[in-house]
């Protein structure tokens, strides 16, 4: 029965993938973190939440971590009491798929500051959010409304490898700031850039 249900969900998401809209309620989800604990989006109601799709093998992600850009963004979010959920939707056997231990080691060695690293090997949550790239970022406000989706910054586009990320416009930090001040998010949708999320096909 459970398999049948999963199948239906998969089929449903295949058809209606990528349909989260900014300014609408973000879909809830329930995933295991790298300590085997259940984590759902709804448990963070009342707090601002950032979702980060990642794949440590992806050169785009690697550059964001190597330059400390991602960690700095995570740090700023942490200071502002924002929940940061790093989500891995790589299917088993594909790039970026990690065990709990490997994931925790990555967090430690890169001094990353996520609130949780969540594993989504079936890609259901990734598909429901329409996460296309690593990194692909989402910002959800205290009421569970999606306020931002897209790239982490404006360094995307051709020539990314040559760009200095510290000079880029960080959309997440800007959106967090605007959200805090009760302003409208200036850039609420941007083009995500990076490697494709390695979904199971």
């Amino acid at each position, binding site marked *: 029965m459970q398999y049948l249900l999963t199948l239906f969900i998969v089929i449903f998401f*295949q058809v209606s*993938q*990528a*349909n989260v*809209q*900014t*300014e*609408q309620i973000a879909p809830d989800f329930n995933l295991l973190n790298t300590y085997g604990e259940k984590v759902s989006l709804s448990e963070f109601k009342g707090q601002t939440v950032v979702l980060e799709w990642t794949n440590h*093998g*992806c*050169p*785009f992600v690697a550059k964001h971590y190597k330059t400390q850009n991602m960690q700095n963004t995570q740090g700023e979010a942490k200071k502002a009491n924002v929940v940061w959920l790093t989500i891995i939707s790589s299917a088993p056997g*594909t*790039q970026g798929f990690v065990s709990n231990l490997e994931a925790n080691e990555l967090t430690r060695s890169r001094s990353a500051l996520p609130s949780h690293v969540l594993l989504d090997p079936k890609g259901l949550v990734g*598909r429901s959010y*329409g996460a*296309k*790239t690593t990194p692909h970022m989402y910002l959800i406000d205290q009421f569970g*409304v999606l306020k931002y*989706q897209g790239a982490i910054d404006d360094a*995307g*586009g*051709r*020539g*990314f*490898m*040559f760009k200095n990320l510290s000079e880029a416009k960080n959309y997440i930090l800007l959106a967090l700031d605007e959200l805090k001040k009760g302003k409208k998010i200036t850039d609420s*949708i941007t*083009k*995500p*850039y*990076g*490697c*494709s*999320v*390695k*979904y199971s*096909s």
Partner: protein
Amino acid sequence: MINIISKKPYKSLSLKLSFFLILLSTASFSLWSDSFFKASDSTIEIISESKTMNAGDELLLGLQFKLSPGWHTYWKNPGDAGEGASVTWSLPEGIKASEILWPGPETIPVEPLMTFGYEDEITLLTNISASEAAVFPAILKAKISWYTCKDICVPQEANLELTIKGGDKRDTSFTNQLSTILLDLPTNLPSQHRVEALDDSYFLQMELKDDASINSAYFFPEEYGLISYSKKQITEINNNSLSLQVPGSEVDLKLQKFAGVLLLNSQNSSQFFNVSLDLGNEQKAEAFSLMDLVITIVFAFIGGLILNVMPCVFPILSIKILSFVEQSEGSRKKMIQHGLSFSAGVLITFLSIAGLLLVLKSGGESIGWGYQLQSPLMVTLLIYLFVAIGITFMSNLILGGQLAQLGNFTQGYSDITGSFLTGVLAVIVASPCTAPFMGSAIGIALLQPGFSTVAIFISLGMGFAAPYLLLSFYPSLLRVLPKPGAWMETMKQFMAFPMWASALWLTWVLSGQVETDTVLMVLLGALLIALSLWLLEKNQSSEGFIKWVAVSVATLLLGSALWLAPTDYENTQDKSSSNGDSYTPELLEELLANDQPVFLNFTADWCITCKVNEAIVLNQTSIKSALKSKNIVYLKADWTRKDAAIADKLAEYGRTGVPLYLLFSPGGVPTILPELLTEDILLSYINEIK
């Protein structure tokens, strides 16, 4: 060679020499940057149509990537993921490089995503131009970054250079190859084409030449946020037109242009074309002109004045005004003070309503209300509301009667505070019968920027307060004021008609959104509401069980009415377009025999072009009225289920499929209209009919 090997003393030397040579040749790749670079799964080389050029010349260069099997690199728009190659030139003075000229890409699906790029081999072109200031030999240096991807992506980087000597251009081994690639670059689409946005898709339509053997098409967009990359595009080929249905983006960025590259495949070739069409998404002149604002403010003021004669307000207020005339005991100053504080009360209340609206509006926007206001459900609820208000005007049913009694509440306060509170209460008390006027003001306010909302409500309030203010300045005018009486009841009853007229208009709006059957259901719902209000009125003075039954039945009826309300749009395309009668050969013959001009539309539900034409042309009121004014009969031959009579008629015109548009002039001679109709084209044909 044999000698060298045979003579031992030289052997070690030769080994050393060859080692040195190998070292040297490797070094030439890494130390002296060259025009060639080998990366892990790809190679890149700068190729040139000539190694020489003169000042004033242009030179075509290519960045040629060769990829290992299974690997790909990206187009300028990579699709859902990835990144196109980038090149940064360091050029000597007088020499310039153009932007990259991108050959047409191919689709590279990465389930469930879609990317656009190139496999095997790809040459990106650049034009180099040398001004008179250029000095040769010139060294052109390029820093190139690109990604090669399979299931994983590998970033690559290369520093290449190419030396160009002075002199006339002379062909190299790459010249032919480069000029072929140049010829294959996307060119402007020569045939007539257009794009229409309908529902969640874009429909790109173009004319086809008779000899074109095109069998499929694909559109590669230039920008993010226009179309969905992973959803399937559907090509439809007609006799001399092509329609491509391109699903819109999941993230609609409301781009102004439908721009990108169109791939047209025929049996044995593929060609790319540039497409750039305006989408009409330009920010509509939303900044509501000053003139409009002034007019709206004037109407709001008049609306405010009218509020005064509404039956729920008038009696209380005329009593009030009399009371503050009395309280002032003839003192003009006191009188004016009363008038001003009453007005202040009214204005502040209206302002609070405006504020509340603005809050609701910003809240509503965040949950996407703007769209809801036009939804069939909203329209239906408004129909119900207007019907109900009309009925309460006609009947003796007192809704909000308790509110009206609030007027007495201010009795306890005397003087200026009392007048202020009366002002506040007047607005609240008035609400049961001011809803329609307020409704339109609220409607406008919701669509306008904040300051207009405030302006509209202030002027509503001023209109409302004006008579009292005037009376407080000129109490003698009180004598001309009509006394409350039976005329007010007549007035109230009369107001039911504008309400019902509004309901009628809304029903018409609704009929464009849902099917006829659903409209009937809504009318039935209105009937149920009427019945339920009648029940309530009849039992207003009943007691106990009977009242309980009446109220429950009425509630049940109201509930059923709500249940009957449609929740979403329905496909009415067919219904609204087929003002036209169904085609039969006999009917056509008869009409033509009577010298009747006829417009015959061959269509089918599965025909994308037909549907687009119907939506954007045939269903337009301009076309409908033009047909009517020329007394042209609109016949529709629906070929959704293939019908022999229609197939015969199509065959008569050498057609095996739809659409086909025929316009028969009174003489019975048909003109075959273009497949890609536009309003202008069709109107010009219609106008030729006498």
